[in-house]
């Protein structure tokens, strides 16, 4: 476990009414795909992916969902928060002609990945999908990178209605990508896996979410059947050859008590 740090929120950017990015002036040295455990030591502690990471600051982009995140949305710049990490595996940065496919509040970690890929000189196409405009984030940031960028919502806010998987399907059939990175809701990623099964030679990596308690690989709450690998240590980023073997993927996950909950 890297040491716990307690520092003030440097600034908060309102991305949409329900999504905000919290910045901290701290040299986290996280790799793309890694996450921190964030807490105010009063309302629980939860995992969040790094969406931006420079030598002088990093950010996490957070969707207001339940008790913890609602409480977080009460905080102001200057308020103290405490975090530990960065934890977990990271995206491999492999590939030269790369497709990034994101969904909803899970897209932001792909932004940090994207910047690192561009720094490496790779060619990157980004698809960003969400159910509504309120869940679609980081559009401007991606657009400012000057790359091929497509956004879409189920609701059709930008003309066409559909999912990021629909766009990825078209892009895959018209392009010759050598790597695909995906971060989105589990059922979206399930659809992506099905899609990717038509491209047998194509490598890909997914960023998963499972209920995390310890985040240091001991409580066993975040293991993935049937491999038993821990999403907090061997994940949250898993490679295609691992994803292929996961039987629980898209089917169920385990809740705070370790009880199986099936996806609807």
């Amino acid at each position, binding site marked *: 476990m890297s040491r*716990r740090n307690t520092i003030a929120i440097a600034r908060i950017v309102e991305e949409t009414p329900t999504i905000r990015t919290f910045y901290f002036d701290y040299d986290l040295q996280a790799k793309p795909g890694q996450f921190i455990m964030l807490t105010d030591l009063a309302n629980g502690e939860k995992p969040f992916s790094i969406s931006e990471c420079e030598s002088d600051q990093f950010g996490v982009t957070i969707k207001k969902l339940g008790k913890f995140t609602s409480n977080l949305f009460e905080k102001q710049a200057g308020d103290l928060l*405490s975090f530990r990490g960065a934890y977990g595996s990271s995206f491999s940065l492999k590939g030269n002609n790369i497709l990034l496919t994101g969904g909803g509040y899970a897209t932001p970690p792909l932004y940090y990945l994207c910047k690192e890929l561009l720094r490496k000189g790779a060619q990157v196409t980004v698809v960003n999908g969400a159910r509504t405009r309120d869940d679609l984030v980081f559009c401007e940031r991606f657009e400012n990178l000057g790359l091929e960028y497509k956004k879409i919502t189920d609701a059709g806010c930008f003309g066409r209605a559909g999912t990021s998987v629909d766009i990825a399907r078209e892009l895959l059939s018209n392009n010759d990508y050598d790597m695909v990175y995906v971060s989105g809701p589990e059922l979206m990623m399930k659809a992506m896996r099905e899609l990717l099964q038509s491209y047998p030679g194509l490598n890909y990596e997914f960023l998963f979410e499972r209920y995390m308690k310890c985040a240091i690989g001991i*409580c*066993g709450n975040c293991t993935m059947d049937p*491999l*038993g690998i821990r999403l907090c240590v061997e994940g949250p980023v898993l490679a295609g050859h691992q994803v292929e073997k996961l039987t629980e993927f898209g089917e169920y996950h385990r809740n*705070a*008590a*370790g*009880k199986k909950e099936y996806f609807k």
Partner: protein
Amino acid sequence: MKGKISLSTEFLGKKTKSPLVLPAGIMGMTWSGMRYVIENGCGIITSKSLTLESRSGHPGPVVAEFAGGLLNCMGLCNPGIIDGLAEINDFKKLMPEIPVIASVFATTAEDFAELSRYVNDSKSDFLELNLSCPNVMDEFGLPLAGSKEQVTDIVKLVKKVSKIPVIAKLSPNVTNLSEIAVTAEAAGADALCMINTLGPGMLVDIDLVKPVLSNRTGGVSGVCVKPIALRAVYESYSRVTIPIIGTGGIASGSDAVEMLMSGASLVGVGSAVYAGGIEVFNIINQGIAEYLKKHNYTNIGQIPRLEKLHEQA
């Protein structure tokens, strides 16, 4: 003409390829987690302590690191006895030859007996009674393992119900641990496991002016508890004849040998999974094998024991 070095041993009639035990609460939540640990060199699995109803445990932070160890206040989160045993059964389907200890937690002898009935109906090989969780004291009071009467009542009642061997898991946070060990043996326990986490302890965030753990305090585990665990095992070993699973702060082959020498039959490896990674089981196995080789032993039964307390001058 030396035989090949082997780490295999027997525990209460079951064979294991390694003396290393995954203790309760570490990675033993899911059948696949159990598998992952075994594939990395562990010999025997203990499940997370299961309760009659499912428990989500305490909110986070539930773990905190400090120099020398870990604090945790998981709060006995578990999916409940039925789902928990389903995980064990799924694991045994996959790896039938690996012994599994089902750990259970309750606060009354009756509930322990009820849990034991469920466990006896599962594929579990052994039943472990967690008499010693320090993280639910606000909820349940002092650890049961502090009271000879309660230990006697619980073990006796469970032994009436259970056909599979019963292990009593004891707490170091008592003034008379070896007496409790004797008590558990007298009540019919087939083996002992010690130690559960120490303390509890507390850490403070000096900027937020709050305890770091959500539950304020948490049990201490990891390398810093090794001396306490060795002493506990040694003093109990000096006074009982049933086997002991020695757990607490074991992180290397020589740690494991120290524990076996102090009287343990098997060696639990918990927090080291965090500090040393999942590879730690193989690394410890290798370290034990190197010790055997250096001393011209071929199996762990040849590792000498310390003279028992009363045998000393």
